[in-house]
């Protein structure tokens, strides 16, 4: 072992520690800032004239806790858990058959089915909500189809503004995650165990139970955990469709912040949310580790059969189901984007009228919104990529050196913050941190904070997947650890970095939550324009803006997939 290598193994460079601590501070800073302001509010709010010192502060805090409406908290928690569980169950029920088909068979439309995984990241919730209203609503396309087959339109009451409406939208959003994640795992499960069961006398189903299901469960549990968390933190969908059905903790946080300015109450809601989120994250990470250790033994991807006979029928039935119930709403967006509403005395026609109005009408908001989105999201994506590369490289280096593992684990845990802490809390935290409460900076920082963990996790996985012998070969040829990292490893994960940056852009460009929470008005991004047009009941123009946004994020996402394919 060279002296340099021995030295590296003993003490990783100080800069690595400094960098990691900086990342940790940055990811925790908004949370700390928020809690500091909220604590001050809690102490001030209950202040009684004449009381001072620690005892007074303690009494104030007690008064605050006593004022929390317990029934509301419990009711929201119950509703949040119920809708998340139901949404997860429906997403899995729809996604698992798709995962089976995509993993085991070759058929037309397979790539499209897998590409649907882009939906949660490319389409902001407001666009999906609009799509669902246009398709499933009382005046929607499904209602019109119902009339075409002989039903009376008014008989179709719809179900959107209910518990099941929320569940349906969540299932739409998340079933592609189940398809994508589970099929990726299923594809690698060797068929030999199920075949062994067949040769021992088991029929197809029993062979599946013995030979496939036990191996599949970690990835199903991981996908379920992820979907549950996404639904648990769902905001816009519940805000729009929840109504009398109920509200989630996330909506309660929003209401406490925006309408009551009650920061302490939102902190309590958020703390409950985070507690549950960590339980979910624990499941996800445990199952993810189990899945990774299994997959390390699997080797190559299993051969897929051409779907034939009953399997072909199953594929067709599944594709029709997905097309009618899930691609239908997206088609509604496209149709409505080109449908120009009837003006006085005129008839409805199809054309580019909605786009023209957005491009050339009063204020012509589309181009400025597009530029704002590209500028702000581009900046946020760059920032997220920078932090993601730095964090993943540092964690990887610490793991390799065997030192500072505790710090590396702390950073890894902090990567889960966007999934464990309310985005509203984080957005307000950034707002408190930004000078003069400048929302543009706060937006870029908050969105980068949401996106960098995705970048870091994906790059860390790419670094871990590298053959360690390549690095060792570079070292034996005289490269220092830094040189070997920059010249060999970083180059090999180059496509992953580009793909992660594209992914970060897709997430930030489609995000409407943070700008809405920040009440942004200095720059209008595409999701904000979409939200404004929808609020003004200009649905067709909203669809046109949504189409532009969907196309932009979709193209970036597909480019990312292409980069991964080529790599």
């Amino acid at each position, binding site marked *: 072992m060279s002296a340099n290598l021995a030295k590296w193994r003993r003490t990783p460079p100080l800069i690595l520690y400094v960098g990691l601590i900086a990342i940790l501070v940055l990811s925790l800073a908004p949370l700390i800032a928020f809690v500091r302001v909220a604590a001050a509010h809690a102490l001030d709010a209950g202040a009684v004239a004449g009381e001072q010192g620690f005892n007074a502060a303690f009494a104030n805090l007690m008064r605050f806790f006593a004022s929390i409406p317990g029934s509301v908290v419990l009711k929201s928690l119950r509703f949040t858990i119920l809708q998340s569980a139901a949404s997860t169950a429906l997403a899995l029920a729809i996604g698992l058959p798709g995962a089976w088909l995509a993993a085991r068979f070759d058929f037309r439309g397979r790539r499209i089915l897998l590409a649907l995984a882009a939906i949660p990241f490319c389409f902001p919730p407001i666009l999906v909500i609009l799509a669902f209203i246009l398709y499933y609503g009382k005046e929607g396309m499904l209602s019109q189809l119902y009339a075409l087959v002989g039903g009376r339109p008014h008989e179709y009451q719809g179900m959107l503004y209910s518990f099941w409406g929320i569940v349906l939208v969540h299932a739409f959003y998340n079933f592609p995650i189940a398809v994508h994640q589970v099929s990726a795992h299923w594809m690698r499960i060797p068929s*030999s165990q199920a*075949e062994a069961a067949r040769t*021992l006398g088991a029929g197809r189903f029993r062979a599946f139970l013995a030979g496939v299901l*036990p191996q599949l469960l970690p990835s199903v549990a991981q996908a379920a955990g992820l979907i549950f968390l996404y639904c648990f933190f769902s905001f816009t969908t519940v805000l729009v469709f929840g109504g009398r059905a109920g509200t989630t903790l996330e909506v309660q946080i929003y209401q406490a912040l925006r309408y009551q300015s009650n920061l302490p109450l939102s902190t309590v809601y958020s703390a409950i949310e985070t507690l549950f989120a960590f339980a979910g994250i624990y499941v996800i990470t445990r199952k993810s580790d189990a899945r990774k250790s299994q997959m390390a033994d699997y080797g190559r991807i299993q051969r897929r059969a051409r779907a034939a006979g009953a399997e072909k029928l199953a594929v067709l039935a599944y594709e029709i189901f997905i097309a009618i119930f899930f691609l239908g709403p997206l088609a509604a967006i496209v149709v409505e984007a080109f449908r120009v509403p009837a003006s006085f005395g005129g008839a409805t026609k199809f054309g580019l009228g909605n786009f023209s109005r957005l491009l050339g009408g009063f204020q012509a908001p589309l181009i400025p919104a597009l530029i704002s989105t590209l500028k702000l999201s581009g900046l946020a994506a760059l920032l997220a990529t920078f932090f993601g590369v730095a964090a993943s490289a540092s964690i990887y280096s610490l793991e390799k050196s065997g030192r500072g593992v505790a710090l590396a684990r702390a950073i890894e845990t902090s990567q889960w913050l966007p999934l464990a802490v309310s985005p509203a809390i984080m957005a307000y935290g950034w707002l408190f941190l930004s000078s003069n409460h400048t929302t543009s900076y706060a937006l870029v920082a908050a969105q980068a904070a949401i996106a960098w963990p995705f970048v870091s996790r994906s790059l860390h996985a790419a670094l871990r997947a590298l053959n360690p012998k390549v690095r060792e070969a570079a070292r034996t040829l005289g490269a220092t650890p830094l040189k070997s990292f920059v010249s060999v490893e970083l180059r090999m994960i180059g496509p992953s970095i580009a793909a992660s940056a594209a992914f970060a852009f897709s997430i930030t460009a489609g995000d409407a939550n943070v700008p809405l929470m920040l009440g942004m008005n200095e720059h209008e991004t595409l999701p904000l324009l979409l939200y404004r047009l929808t609020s003004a009941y200009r649905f067709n123009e909203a669809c046109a803006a949504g189409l532009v946004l969907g196309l932009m994020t979709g193209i970036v996402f597909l480019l990312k997939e292409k980069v991964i394919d080529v790599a």
Partner: protein
Amino acid sequence: MSLDVKNLVVKRGDFQLSADFSLKRGKIGVLLGPSGCGKTTLLRSIAGLEPIETGNIILDGARIENLPPEKRGLGFVFQDLALFERMSVRKNIGYGLAIGRVPKSARDEKIKALARRFQIEHLLDRFPAELSGGERQRVALARALAPDPALMLLDEPLSALDAPLRREMRRFMRVSLTESKLTTIHVTHDVEEAVDLADEIVVMNRGKIVGKGTMSVFAARPDSGWLARFMNLGLVLPVRDIRVLGGSRTIEASSSSGEKFAINDANDHSAHAAIDARRIYIPFSALSVSDAARHGPTLTARVVRNLAISPTQGKVVFELVDMEQYFFEMPAENVGAWVLAHAEGDLIELAVDERYCQLIPEDAQELRGRE
């Protein structure tokens, strides 16, 4: 039970497999061939795990090709063993019995008997991940044997083991399978393994069966140059010219290096092949270190590796001087006492006993195609 595979055809994209062979009751047949030749596909087709285009699979007089795998009553040991990782060894072995609704007491008894026979009694409550390579092999074999299959199919189950363990397991399997008088097909690409295990060897290449028999049968008359080289039976030299010596029953074949071999015409098995598709086959038994008193052709060879440890033990690797990168191995006993006196790089003359030389086609399939 006896097995008959008749006119079986399996198609996978551009690859086509055709097979026709039989195996007598209680015999161990080995499917031998290079990677990708279709031997595993053939085995899986017999088990019903791969669909077939045409043909019949007959087990003890009953056609089974249309039955699903679970109805064929076969035992199958997979290359990766395919143990159920979430089940204990006991449950793995008992799986087929449970499916067959064997009562629990009888099932436990059978599991115990098999575990005793395979010396894995102490492992019954462990999980596959806690077993060594050899122990996993035994569990896989016990599991396949438990439901009393009519035919045992083994798909390179020893390939993942290191050499000493592979040898040990080979012996163990041969003894176990012979004891149980179970008709077995074993797939391998290892000639030594095939020779060690088989009552009969079926050699495959490019989706076709190119030879059937035992090692001694193949060595006496290999069907093709490819087969002789693959099984390391002797030297296979390209032919430059052939002429019948006037009035006699002798053919003179010239190798590409110009050496002439007088071969009895009864040893010409390639009469229908074009000259460039014919080969001179010289079994190793026909080669000896040349002495001045002997007449006939000789070949000049260079010692590449001398691995002899006595005049009768070990082997020597040679390279033919006149043919670029033609390496071959000969047992030390064929070389004799001379072997100990020579080091790597030395040149020697090998005398060829022409009586054992044969003319064979390079590719028996192509020859049959032309016929």
